[in-house]
């Protein structure tokens, strides 16, 4: 569901404006603005410390920005500034409509609870009360992320890093979110595991028609996953455009450096 | 029979208490311990009981030590349970420790500080050899220690005075309209806690627990690199303003131990680099406790100075919720109360699970054969 040029763009799912975050006198990110349409995958790239995580956290309601607005097309209130919602409403909206895949599965999983229960939890959060049905959809999802369903009751620590990441992906998709945030979802994994997980993510995102904002410093990941790219440097967006355009014909000198450094490796 | 022992009832309780009284007295051939002896000769036990019992009364604390057979947490509990029934007339003015009649005053920060070092009555530098001369009781009281050649400074300036002209040490915050300090004996814990609430909890906190936390911090679990700025112990006057009079009158004198720990602070956007303080204060002479308290106080101030907080000593909920030995001792020991209703429920479950386990095993075996 890429944004097709020439057609009338549907209403944005997410609309960010003037988003700025200061940590004391250290700049996190400044004056970021963009729209995200349903089903669109936006990649945020840039070197370490450029403000990717800061931006993602501000957009996803984890970190209150210093200035700016994050409007999301909520089911209950329509297009609304998420920081204008009451905290219970915002948390409910996050539970119901969003997912967040952390770089480190430990940050996104309950490590003391079985993999299966981790995957089922979002359903329970939304009021599901039938054990058998939840168990079945957990099994279906473990299958979808290519995990051995017989290990449903194992604790996360008994899974490898790549497997933990799959559990985290299943946990963040099972409740049918419309927007999923991902911060370096393949960052901690070795190259071969990374490739399989990326393939899987790409398929799932396409099949489900998900909108995704994915942070990465890896241009290969960006090319594979994203429809559109935003390049950050020193807390600001220096270039933005369709992924192929940005990577094949970078305009900003910093982007050129970023792209060429990848090619040299 | 098991049934009788759990349903002991009236008689068992009465008899147990008689037995306790008998054991407390010990061999009747040995002189009964007088409360005054405890007060005078086990004075550090008395001091600890007053401190953690939050009640300054040497006689009551000595009585509690005697009644508790020397079990100090039990004595602290006795004193607390008494204290809570006392009427409140009001709050005293803050005591001025600079106006303390100092019996001991040392600083590790400078070789010589205004007012000088006063070693006072301390175990420090004694060799920890059992003194068998003490076992031969009935000797003459020890010679009084000689008087100093020069009179002591009064008031005794505190460590902050050394830094005053250079602004190297964070200031005391003194406001005339300070809000009533938090009172944990009247209000439940609240989080995040302000410093007044934290300091009160630490002042009432168990010496052993705070000592271990302070120690853990020194060993690298949330270190604040403390330096002992000053310890002082001595007597201060307590002043109170009765409504009828409208001016302060002195209502008594208490012995206090005060400790200031210094920790460097690299500065932030708003604050210049400076030394920060950890503060410890106890009734009586409780030096180990005052020092531990100061280190823990400083560790808990991580939010103010933007330190990363990942050690137990920096975890406010962990430290404050678990430092009170009256709460801790009661809850740990409540496990002695009968739990056979819940245990029965548990037993039932485990029997059922065992049964299912063996049935499954048997089925597997059958299938295999």
């Amino acid at each position, binding site marked *: 569901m890429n944004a097709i040029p020439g057609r009338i763009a549907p209403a944005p799912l997410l609309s960010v404006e003037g988003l700025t975050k200061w940590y004391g006198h250290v700049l996190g990110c400044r004056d970021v603005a963009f729209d995200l349409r349903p089903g669109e995958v936006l990649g945020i790239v840039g070197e370490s410390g450029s403000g990717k995580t800061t931006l993602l956290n501000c957009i996803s309601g984890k970190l209150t920005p210093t200035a700016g607005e994050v409007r999301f097309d909520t089911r209950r209130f329509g297009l609304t500034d998420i920081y204008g919602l009451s905290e219970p409403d915002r*948390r409910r909206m996050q539970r119901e409509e969003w997912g967040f895949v952390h770089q480190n599965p430990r940050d996104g999983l309950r490590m003391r609870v079985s993999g299966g*229960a981790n995957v*089922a939890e979002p359903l*329970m959060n939304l009021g599901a009360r*039938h054990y058998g049905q939840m168990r079945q959809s957990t099994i279906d999802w473990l299958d979808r992320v290519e995990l051995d369903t017989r290990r449903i009751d194992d604790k996360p620590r008994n899974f490898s890093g790549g497997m933990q990441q799959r559990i985290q992906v299943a946990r963040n998709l099972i409740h049918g979110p419309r927007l999923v945030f991902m911060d370096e979802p393949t960052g901690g994994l070795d190259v071969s595991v990374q490739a399989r997980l990326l393939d899987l993510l790409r398929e799932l995102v396409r099949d489900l028609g998900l909108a995704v904002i994915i942070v990465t410093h890896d241009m290969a990941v960006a090319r594979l996953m994203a429809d559109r790219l935003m390049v950050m440097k020193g807390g600001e967006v220096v270039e933005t455009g369709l992924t192929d355009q940005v990577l094949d014909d970078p305009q900003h000198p910093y982007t050129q450096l970023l792209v060429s450094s990848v090619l040299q490796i | 029979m*098991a049934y009788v022992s759990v349903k002991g009832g009236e008689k068992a309780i009465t008899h147990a208490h008689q037995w306790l009284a008998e054991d407390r007295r010990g061999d009747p051939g040995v002189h009964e311990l007088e409360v005054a002896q405890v007060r005078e000769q086990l004075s550090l036990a008395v001091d600890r009981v007053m401190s953690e019992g939050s009640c300054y009364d040497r006689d009551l604390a000595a009585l509690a030590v005697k009644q508790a057979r020397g079990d100090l947490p039990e004595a602290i509990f006795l004193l607390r349970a008494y204290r809570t029934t006392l009427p409140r007339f009001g709050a005293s003015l803050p005591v001025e420790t600079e106006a303390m009649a100092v019996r001991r005053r040392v600083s590790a920060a400078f070789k010589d500080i205004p007012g000088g070092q006063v070693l006072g009555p301390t175990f420090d530098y004694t060799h920890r050899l059992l003194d068998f001369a003490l076992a031969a009781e009935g000797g003459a009281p020890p010679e009084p220690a000689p008087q100093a050649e020069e009179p002591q400074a009064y008031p005794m300036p505190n460590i902050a005075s050394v830094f005053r002209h250079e602004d190297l040490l964070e200031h005391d915050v003194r406001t005339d309209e300070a809000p009533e300090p938090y009172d944990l004996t009247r209000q439940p814990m609240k989080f995040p806690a302000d410093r007044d609430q934290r300091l009160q909890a630490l002042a009432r906190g168990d010496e052993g627990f705070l000592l271990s936390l302070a120690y853990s911090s020194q060993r690298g679990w949330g270190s604040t690199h403390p330096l002992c700025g000053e310890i002082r112990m001595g007597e201060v006057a307590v002043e109170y303003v009765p409504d009828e009079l409208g001016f302060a009158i002195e209502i008594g004198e208490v012995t206090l131990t005060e400790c200031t720990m210094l920790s460097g602070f690299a500065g932030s956007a708003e604050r210049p680099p400076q030394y920060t303080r950890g503060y410890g204060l106890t009734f009586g002479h409780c030096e180990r406790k005052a020092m531990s308290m100061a280190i823990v106080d400083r560790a808990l101030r991580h939010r103010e100075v933007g330190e990363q907080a990942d050690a137990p000593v920096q975890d406010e909920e962990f430290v404050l919720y678990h430092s009170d030995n009256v709460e801790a001792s*009661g809850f740990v020991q409540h496990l002695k109360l009968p739990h056979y*209703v*819940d245990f*029965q429920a548990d037993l039932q479950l485990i029997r059922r699970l065992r049964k299912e386990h063996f049935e499954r095993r048997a089925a597997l075996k059958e299938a295999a054969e």
Partner: protein
Amino acid sequence: MSTPVPALANAPERYYNYAYLDEQTKRMIRRSILKALAIPGYQVPFGSREMPVPYGWGTGGIQLTAAIIGPDDVYKCIDQGADDTTNAVSIRRFFANVADVATTEDTGEATIIQTRHRIPEKPLKQGQVLVYQVPQPEPLRGLEARETETRAMHAYEEYGLQYVSLYENISAYGRIAATAGYPVMVEERYLMSPSPIPKFDNPKMAQNEAVMLFGAGREKRIYAVPPFTRVRSLDFEDYPFETQTWEETCALCGAEDSYLDEVILDDAGDKMFVCSDSHHCAERRAAGHVGPMAGHALDQDAALKEPAE
């Protein structure tokens, strides 16, 4: 620890105020009780006092009782369902001492019943108050150690974590294994710990005619279930809540529907089951009910008797 109050406590020049606590403190506690009744299941923080019994031994329940008791009350105190367990005896003595109150073992006659770990078998009536002693008021504490977190969960009604634990139970044991302190939902809003009563007693809480007050002294919380309130034990549609049952009946009174304690008779594995609610059992026997071991030594021991004091 049971008679910390000197003999003078009951004399005209008593050392302590009526019912031990001073009137200001009682007023503070009563305000907390009213708030708790107004928000069923919500844990109200209160300025719990140090009591002359240790924390964990009923300080919360004692403060609640002290705040509401008057000379006209009739007080009953049970632990594990029985009136003659040591701590119950000790607490009952305390109130007889400091509140000049009549005491009873008769559930029907009592106006205030203080309890640890049980709800009496006999249904409670309007006008009665059941005071629970609560060691840990926070139902989520076993799953989340931080108070700051659990308070937020209640505020936002985010109870997924509790269901996760039930889910795990079923995955591991094929059933919800919680047996005592089984969490309940009050008026479909607040998740609440029923205190460590066996889940056998949970259904008694729903639509109960009596006022139910819960006191946690050490944790400094009061909560309440007003009369005729919905109280639902958590479960799943396909794993509905169920209570314990026994194959045995009470050896003394033959009761088939009461909560039973297991009594070890010797070290050869012989045992008998008797009602945990000692007054219920005695009353049944007085009414002529006979169990398979009627006449056993325990029968005399636990027979219906006049109030001790």
